[in-house]
């Protein structure tokens, strides 16, 4: 396998763009990534587009706006991991030698659904019985609170941290700090979650140009390398399951660490899938940033805040930057690359050289989650 590096990044500020088409949301991110890469347009060998709910031919709709067509354009649907799965496919294509320069784009327009919880697949028997994503995570939270004595107020501090970070990020959907009292007093969604425990719905797009190491180094002196690219799916059971342990993410993390030849102590910055407050805490444990049951201690120590040893979600994460489902994985990757290149601006993590992007999700009965995709970046 060949080295694979990132040579261009682009993203639009996440938010609500009900009057724009999916293509209008997507092309500015693609244009920015290509211009930043310096790659001539006709040298892009393939496009992988991640979108969960964008509909047929999302990638072609975006690319034709820029007049870039003719190459293979592959559309990838994998719920919350759509564009991170697209990145994994792109990585494989470059690492294997099939392609030299590949564009990855994640694009989503959730405002077309008019708000509310994410529309899920009604063929799923749990969805048919009233399951919604906040309820699934809320049940994890309730059980975690039961087993480890975490309080709802402690859980709410995840949201306070996320918004402290997001307030510094011009690409964040919610650029507003919240206090723990505001978190607790906002309207209930699914107990113990109030509104501020939940990521907002919205629209967004992000893109990356990746290339083989030798080509990348012709365009950049010290490009960020993708040291691990991992996609896994949840394990099916209709029996009992420990909902306080993110088995899927833990399995993916081990695979990614092994591939990169690093461990949790080496990580400087991570963008992890905090769709709801409990998720961030559970993933601290799954990534080995702390022992099981000790995630709140890690949060309250400040270690995962800007200035801490292992900054988690400096962008504001899903809770603050936003979560236009299929665009999230690419946005996380863009964030980590810019962090490692030292150009993240007001929310820069100092001297970061190793970063993780983690997108997991997809509510599906019998599985922890549908999918988990993890990338490790090194500079």
């Amino acid at each position, binding site marked *: 396998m060949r080295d694979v590096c990132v040579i261009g990044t682009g993203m639009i500020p996440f938010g609500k763009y009900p009057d724009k088409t999916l293509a209008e949301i997507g092309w500015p991110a693609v244009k920015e990534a290509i211009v930043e890469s310096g790659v001539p347009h006709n040298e892009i060998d393939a496009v992988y587009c991640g979108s969960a709910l964008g509909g047929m031919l999302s990638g072609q709709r975006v690319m034709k706006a820029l007049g870039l067509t003719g190459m293979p354009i592959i559309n990838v649907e994998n719920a919350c991991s759509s564009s991170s799965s697209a990145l994994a496919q792109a990585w494989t294509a470059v690492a294997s030698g099939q392609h030299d320069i590949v564009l990855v784009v994640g694009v989503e327009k959730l405002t077309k659904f008019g708000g509310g919880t994410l529309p899920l697949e009604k063929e799923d*028997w749990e969805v048919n019985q009233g399951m919604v994503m906040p309820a699934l995570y809320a049940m994890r939270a309730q059980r975690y609170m039961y087993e480890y004595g975490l309080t709802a107020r402690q859980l709410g501090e995840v949201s306070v941290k996320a918004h402290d970070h997001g307030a510094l990020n011009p690409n964040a959907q919610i650029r507003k700090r919240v206090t723990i009292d505001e978190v607790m007093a906002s309207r209930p969604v699914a107990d113990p979650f109030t509104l501020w425990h939940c990521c907002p719905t919205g629209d967004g797009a992000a893109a990356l140009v990746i290339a083989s190491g030798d080509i990348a180094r012709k365009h950049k002196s010290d490009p960020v390398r993708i040291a691990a690219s991992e996609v896994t799916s949840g394990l099916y059971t209709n029996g009992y399951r420990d909902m306080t342990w993110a088995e899927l993410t833990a399995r993916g993390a081990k695979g990614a660490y092994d591939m990169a030849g690093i461990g949790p102590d080496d990580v400087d910055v991570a963008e992890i899938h905090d769709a709801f407050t409990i998720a961030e805490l559970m993933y601290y444990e799954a990534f080995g940033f702390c022992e099981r049951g000790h995630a709140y201690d890690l949060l309250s120590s400040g270690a995962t805040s800007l200035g801490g040893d292992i900054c988690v979600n400096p962008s504001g994460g899903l809770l603050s930057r936003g979560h236009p489902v299929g665009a999230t994985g690419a946005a996380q990757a863009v964030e980590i690359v810019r962090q490692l290149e030292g150009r993240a601006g007001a929310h820069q993590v100092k001297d970061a050289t190793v970063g993780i992007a983690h997108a997991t999700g997809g509510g599906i009965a019998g599985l922890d989650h549908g999918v988990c995709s993890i990338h490790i970046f090194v500079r």
Partner: protein
Amino acid sequence: MTESGTLVANPDAANADERFVAPDLVARDPAGKPRLIGGRCRACAQLSFPRAAVCPGCFSEDIDAVYLAEEGTLYSYSVVHQAPKGWAVPYALGYVDLADEVRVLAHLDVPADKLAIAMTMRLGIGVVGADASGAPLLSYTFTSA
């Protein structure tokens, strides 16, 4: 009383007269008690809920419809305040661990302040929402035992 694991005589005609969210998941047994209908593989005895068409343990397609346990333990729950149209919000959802080691997502017919993890639950039938015409929709529910 009908033992859990007992074969369901005619699972396809179980709920002809009532409006159920998922009529294939619940039926009344010969004694008139609500029961969840699961599947049991004839080849390897693995239980499924909902009743599987193909056994995820051994690929057999010979899956009997069987009654599942009527009681279980509440693994976790949440009171849902925001949901798609049709559901009567707020409603309590929970995972109930049945004695036969199947975990079932269910509406919980228990006041919010009485819900507690590890409480013993018993199967029932209740109204959980309404269809497009406003007619009540039924489903299996769990109440405190």
